[in-house]
């Protein structure tokens, strides 16, 4: 055993060395397989299977065999105005949540990076929405928005701004109302990521710029932002994806209503699959969602990266 590990040692002290096979030695397989099998069976496999399903007429609880139908699902989808309406709502929701989320988180992160008195409280509070179950976040905001017993309408009444309204059932107010909840719920993660990025910015550079008489905005633009950019890009891209795919929050808040005004694509696909049993069709929706999001994300990242002078 001693001999064996001694001969193997060079490989270990040079971790970057390319292995001779998929793995440098057989012992490593033993370490890798326990995780690899569930990943393949329950993640990679289902993903590929899902793409295949999009080209079939698979339905739940049907006795006939599932058949290949080629691109028929996609053709139907092309003319499915309800789906594209839902898709549009999904994009409005994703952008409407991600952008304010980023700006608010940036502000909060900058504040938390300062030496302020109530910082500990803000830090603690900023973590809470992250720890909460999404379902509870939804329930909590239902209480806030409640037309009679909710605090929002009561505050409006107190301020003499009218009687308030039924925020989550109003055709015009439902989507903005759920977007506010989305921003609230996602604020912590973004703040923590940005704060981590901020604490990586070179302090000395900041101080030097201050000594040279650079104002706060100049210092932010020339010192802080360049250091923060990679983190900011990564978290924004992730937020866009996460928000576009979000489900539980809106499911609890409105269930997609009123009249489909908040029916995000995930809710639409969920209903199609598990209420109406149209597995193949719902899988095709999933494929379209991935494709469009990938393209948008590629455009976003390419544009951002080209726009940068450094990093």
């Amino acid at each position, binding site marked *: 055993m001693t001999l064996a*590990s001694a001969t193997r040692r060079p490989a270990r002290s040079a971790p970057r060395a390319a292995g001779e096979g998929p793995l440098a030695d057989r012992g490593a397989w033993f370490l890798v397989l326990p995780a690899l099998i569930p990943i393949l069976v329950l*993640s990679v496999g289902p993903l590929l299977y899902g793409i295949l399903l999009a080209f079939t007429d698979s339905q739940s609880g049907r006795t006939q065999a599932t058949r290949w139908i080629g691109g028929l699902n996609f053709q139907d989808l092309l003319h499915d105005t309800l789906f594209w309406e839902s898709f549009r709502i999904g994009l409005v929701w994703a952008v409407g949540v991600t952008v304010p989320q980023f700006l608010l988180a940036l502000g909060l992160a900058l*504040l938390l990076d300062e030496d302020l008195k109530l910082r500990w409280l803000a830090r603690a509070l900023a973590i809470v929405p992250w720890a*909460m179950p999404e379902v509870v976040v939804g329930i909590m905001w239902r*209480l806030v928005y409640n037309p*009679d017993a909710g605090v929002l309408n009561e505050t409006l009444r107190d301020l003499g701004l009218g009687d308030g309204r039924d925020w989550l*059932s109003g055709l015009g107010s439902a989507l903005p109302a759920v977007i506010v909840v989305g921003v609230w719920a996602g604020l912590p993660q973004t703040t923590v990521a940005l704060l981590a990025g901020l604490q990586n910015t070179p302090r000395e550079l900041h101080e030097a710029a201050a000594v040279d008489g650079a104002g706060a905005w100049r210092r932010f633009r020339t010192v802080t932002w360049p250091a923060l950019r990679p983190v900011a890009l990564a978290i924004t891209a992730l937020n866009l994806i996460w928000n576009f795919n979000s489900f539980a929050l809106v499911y609890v808040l409105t269930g997609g209503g009123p009249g489909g005004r908040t029916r995000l694509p995930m809710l639409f696909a969920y209903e199609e699959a598990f209420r109406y049993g149209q597995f193949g069709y719902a899988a095709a929706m999933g494929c379209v969602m991935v494709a469009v999001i*990938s393209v948008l994300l590629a455009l976003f990242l390419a544009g951002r990266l080209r726009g940068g002078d450094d990093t």
Partner: protein
Amino acid sequence: MRTRTGTRIGQYAALLAYLVFLAFPLLWLLSTAFKSPRELGSLHPTWIPRHPTLDNFRQAFDEQPLLHAALNSLLAAAGAAVIAVLIATPLAYVIARRRTPLTRAATGWVVVSQAFPLVLVIIPLFLVLKNLRLIDSLFGLTLVYVVWALPFALWMLVGYVRAVPAEVEEAAAVDGAGRLRTLVSVVAPLLAPGITATGLFAFVTAWNEFFFALVLLKTAEKQTLPVVLTHFIGAEGVADLGPLAAAAFLATLPSLVVFAVIQRRITGGMLTGAVKN
């Protein structure tokens, strides 16, 4: 000096605004949980309950099988957390120490899995689990949570492993420790705090999870806490607000406690993972 004070005041005002925005829904949830039905029906709700009562909590337990659901959640979340760190730690070790096509593929999966739309995974997952006879089963749900927790667990653990200098292992090898010995008695103890934090994080994610539980569990007795919470809301969106608030508050407590414990480590781990990758 004058402008500095002005800046400070502005900063405090902004911080206060953030505090209000972050805290007010939480306080309202608490306030609602302790209000009597009559007070909830009144047209002018107040922040502080006029006659605080615990009735809502009692009623919440009467209306829905909360304890049983909490037990289901606990089983699924704890099981998922333990299995996830058990299988993720060795893989993370290999990813951190070796660079081979396989470990690169694993890293790629960690990144890509973040972009999976759940809808594309859930239908096939439903069918796969059905074939394995793991549909409508807590064990099946636990396995799904394991795989679902793996990307983040791997991300964190790779960072922690990289923080352990390779020299430590070499020294152990020189002293005659075999490969497995080195891993179990030298590397693992150094990783213990990181492994614990990762496991607890996996626990919270699973405890909070809703979508998979909603789709994969059908029998009422098997349902987890988040799904049961939604049962407080009736078909027409009408809910008994008091018990709803009370139950929601109770369901959040475990997550909050665990998160408070690991918060520093998670944010730190996210950063090391991000910097080193």
